[in-house]
């Protein structure tokens, strides 16, 4: 069984690395269809990554070493996170490294490095993007933690695989607390990944941009790593959502190799559905003004805390 666990682990990380760009491609494709545009190719993110890796890197004269190492740190954090999240199986050797709370910390660390790197060169856009990113981050993090607390309380564990294992066993049934936190989680996901009501990922050089403003100074392989890390982050968030709210199809501890064979198509189906759902949300909603973002995230926090309270009151 030990070997199987490691296979699952490696498979998960490789799948995350390979599937993250195509997931973004799928999302963009769905969005284009919904908006009656001709859809870009599904493989476009791969092609642009490939193109960026083969370009010559240009770095500003006054950039410090922080600016150079930040893409590697951010990318590394996202890969590690992909290893912790039980997207296919629940018996992962890497899980001892971090529970769900440390996972939130991992995302925060990546965000800090990204913001510092954006400020490092000293351009106005970079600083502006970094400050906005930190504003979104500090409002989204408590909501995300609350969501995780609800799931942890239900399963009495903060390790993601244990939570998934417990929820997948189907003993919980209809839980209003969990439903509320699912809504909160979707709001946090949109905010954290610079999706439409909060940030528009399709624009460059607009005064309202957040994520794009931070990576403006990067080029070539550094930019490729940053983009790939952003795609991985989206993929990771979606997989956390599956682990907490839709844990069906995941290979559970006692099933063995067959479970893994079921888990891979199950994950693909769930990702396709999630991509279409996200595209739908992005199509029907309009970009908010930056001043409204705290209100949006306060709603997410409200949902998460209500989920917690309702769970404590009704579930006890």
């Amino acid at each position, binding site marked *: 069984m030990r070997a199987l666990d490691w296979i699952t682990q490696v498979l998960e990380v490789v799948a995350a690395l390979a599937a993250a760009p195509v997931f973004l491609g799928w999302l963009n494709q769905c969005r284009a269809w919904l908006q009656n545009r001709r859809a870009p190719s599904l493989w476009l993110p791969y092609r642009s990554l490939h193109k960026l890796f083969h370009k010559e890197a240009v770095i500003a004269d006054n950039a410090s070493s922080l600016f150079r190492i930040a893409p590697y740190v951010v990318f590394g954090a996202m890969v590690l996170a992909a290893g912790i999240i039980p997207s296919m199986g629940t018996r992962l050797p890497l899980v001892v490294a971090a529970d769900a709370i440390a996972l939130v910390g991992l995302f925060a660390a990546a965000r800090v490095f990204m913001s510092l790197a954006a400020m490092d060169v000293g351009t106005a856009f970079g600083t502006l993007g970094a400050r906005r990113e930190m504003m979104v981050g500090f409002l989204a993090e408590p909501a995300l933690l609350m969501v995780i607390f609800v799931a942890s309380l239900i399963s009495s564990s903060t390790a993601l695989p244990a939570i998934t294992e417990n929820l997948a066993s189907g003993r*919980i*049934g209809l839980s*209003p607390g969990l439903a509320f936190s699912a809504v909160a989680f979707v709001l946090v996901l949109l905010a954290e990944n610079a999706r439409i009501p909060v940030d528009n990922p399709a624009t460059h050089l607009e005064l309202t941009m957040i994520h794009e403003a931070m990576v403006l100074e990067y080029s070539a392989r550094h930019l490729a790593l940053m983009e790939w890390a952003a795609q991985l982050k989206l993929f990771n968030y979606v997989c956390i959502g599956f682990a907490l709210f839709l844990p069906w199809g995941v290979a559970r501890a006692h099933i063995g190799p067959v479970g893994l064979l079921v888990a891979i198509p199950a994950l693909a189906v769930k990702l396709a559905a999630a991509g279409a759902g996200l595209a739908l949300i992005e199509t029907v909603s309009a970009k908010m003004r930056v001043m409204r973002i705290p209100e949006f995230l306060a*709603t997410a926090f*409200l949902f998460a805390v209500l989920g917690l309270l309702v769970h*404590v*009151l*009704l579930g006890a």
Partner: protein
Amino acid sequence: MTHLPLDQQMLDSCAALLLLLSFAMLSQRRVVTLVNLYAVQGAVLAAATLLLAWRTGEGHLYLSAALTLALKVAFLPWLLHRLIRRLEVYWDTEPLLNVSGTMLAGLLIVVFAFALAQPIALLASTATRSAVGIAVSVVLLAFLMMITRRKAMSQVVGFLSMENGVFFGAMSASYGMPMVVELGVALDVLVAVLVLGVFFFQIRERFESLDLHHLESLKEHE
């Protein structure tokens, strides 16, 4: 964790939904949407009453579910919409206190209400006793809404939402009040809304607005 029966789970979900709708009303700026939300809250309340009636087999609960449906989902929203049309306050939005701040205050109120309801819930012997806390929070959130609003129309909706909370509390603590009391309360609410409807016209004729802060000064000219 024990597996609760399905109807219990659905009742709990209804209770949670009522709480959520209270928050939605608290954050809503537009009067028309507010009235619609009130109608939805009434519908959820009727569904919860029906579920409870089916679960306990108490006949009078069916009657009060029907009463809720007729009065709070159909008649009162219709009346309020008509008033909105007649007073031409469709697009009446009102400046709220900072929405996030109001929400956080609402959360604190919910925590307080849950703590308050804990001993009551321990005394009750009904299957829905855990929902008493939610009923108390619906009442207090409606209070908060009435305090933070300035327009007369939103205050009336707050008042009606408060009655929803009281009704739900009675239902979950003791399977509803006696029929006579329930009918009396329903009639009271009806009369109150009718009287307030007339009152709106009077306020508007006098001050040319439904903003209640005009009523705060005693004399017209200082």
